[in-house]
């Protein structure tokens, strides 16, 4: 007969929330300071060192925020997908915390990418929005984020919400490349290339990379902080529930728990 059995896996024992809280508590200040410093240095390079583009002038400086935002918007989705996989397959206790914490941050960066892209587009294309393949794909990514957050918030049972959101995240990650491919196909049918992809000079590339690195650290700092908040929120919730149970419990305090006290006895009839 097949049996139903689950037991704590080794990864579950290793990565318990307590250890995470301990480690992240020590790392977080350093990451925060490092990201602030690197972003400040990148901004110095952007505004005082990097040359204005000969075609785009000073507006090119939006790119130093736009590109890292777009990249982090995608990376956050990858992180959510990996976390979702970890939740559904390995039942990793931190996986859902990570997925839940990453969604709003990823959505915010995606939105930032859309807004900066739109602001950049105004001087470039003469309009705030064009149905460029990239903009369209990023917009759809933003919709996926909205779907993830809306689904989670509309299901009361948090454990169930976590699993269902993970299913949606994995469906999304399978479909994202297909959506991207179809949007590219659609774009080539309808519109000539907008010529955004010009070769990038080192004078622009280096500040861009530094800026991207700083923003990535910022992302990790925010993600870690959000995970810590979520863990604390869950602890508060657990304590409250325990309090409710204690209030409900009829057995007087101090009485040893009689959990699983089972007496099977033959009924009078028949024996």
């Amino acid at each position, binding site marked *: 007969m097949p049996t139903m059995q689950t037991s704590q896996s080794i990864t579950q024992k290793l990565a318990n929330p307590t250890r995470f809280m301990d480690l992240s508590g020590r790392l977080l200040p350093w990451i925060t300071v490092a990201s602030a410093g690197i972003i400040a240095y990148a901004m110095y390079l952007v505004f005082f060192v990097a040359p204005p583009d000969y075609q785009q002038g000073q507006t090119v400086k939006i790119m130093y925020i736009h590109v890292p935002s777009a990249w982090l918007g995608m990376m956050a989705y990858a992180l959510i997908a990996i976390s979702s996989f970890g939740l559904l397959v390995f039942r990793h206790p931190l996986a859902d915390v990570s997925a839940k914490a990453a969604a709003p941050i990823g959505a915010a960066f995606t939105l930032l990418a859309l807004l900066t892209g739109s602001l950049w587009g105004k001087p470039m294309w003469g309009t705030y929005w064009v149905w460029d393949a990239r903009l369209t794909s990023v917009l759809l990514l933003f919709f996926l984020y909205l779907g993830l957050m*809306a689904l989670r918030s509309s299901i009361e049972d948090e454990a169930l919400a976590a699993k269902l959101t993970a299913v949606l995240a994995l469906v999304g990650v399978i479909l994202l490349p297909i959506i991207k491919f179809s949007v590219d196909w659609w774009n080539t049918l309808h519109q000539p290339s907008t010529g955004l992809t010009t070769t990038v000079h080192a004078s622009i590339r280096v500040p861009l990379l530094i800026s991207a690195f700083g923003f990535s650290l910022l992302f990790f700092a925010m993600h870690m902080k959000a995970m810590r908040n979520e863990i604390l929120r869950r602890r508060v919730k657990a304590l409250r529930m325990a309090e409710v149970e204690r209030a409900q419990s009829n057995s007087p305090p101090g009485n040893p728990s009689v959990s699983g006290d089972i007496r099977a006895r033959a009924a009078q009839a028949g024996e």
Partner: protein
Amino acid sequence: MRGAFATFVALVRRDLVLAVREGGALGTALGFFLIVVALMPLGLGPDLNLLSRIASGVLWIALLLAALLSLPRIFEADYEDGALEVMAMGELPMEMVAAAKSLAHWISTGIPLALMAPMLGILLNLDLASAPVLVATMLAGTPAISFLGSIGAALTLKARRGGLLLALLVLPLYIPTLIFGISTVNAASLASDSFWPSFAILVALSLGSAVLGPIAAAAAVKFQIQ
């Protein structure tokens, strides 16, 4: 194996019988399809050239919205009356249950909507010569709507505001089908070489979603009958 196939067919047949007897749902979807199409000229103006140019796109979008309306039916009733729990006790894997129910949804909703599209096309001055191609692309593309839609239907079984949420979850997943559905129609009207490639991709999208949809929907259903 033979037994599993018979069970699958029995389940599809039962869902179809229910769709016919309980009626309503298809009528609502068709009515909605008609309304959305009728609103277009009212919003865009009665210029026949413009309408004719955008007819196939409008019909595709209206079809997506109309099909969306009927998606909750895939699992909702069986969840609420406990039938899904009994199905979980059978030997047919939940993935096949989800596939059977999505297939029944396609037959009872996708096919009628696709067949009705040319008639509504008349309202939009659709070039009648392109109607057969339009129907063909809709028939090839609507399975993806049912199979991908079953994921959303399963995910929102216990959700508050399920209907609105379903639209938000599912519509982005429909974008590839929409794009290739319309590009196939356009390719046909231009007699372009890209007709067969985009038609093939449309079919591939439907086949791919027939695999992905039941797996994801079954996972979502199993989590919810715990």
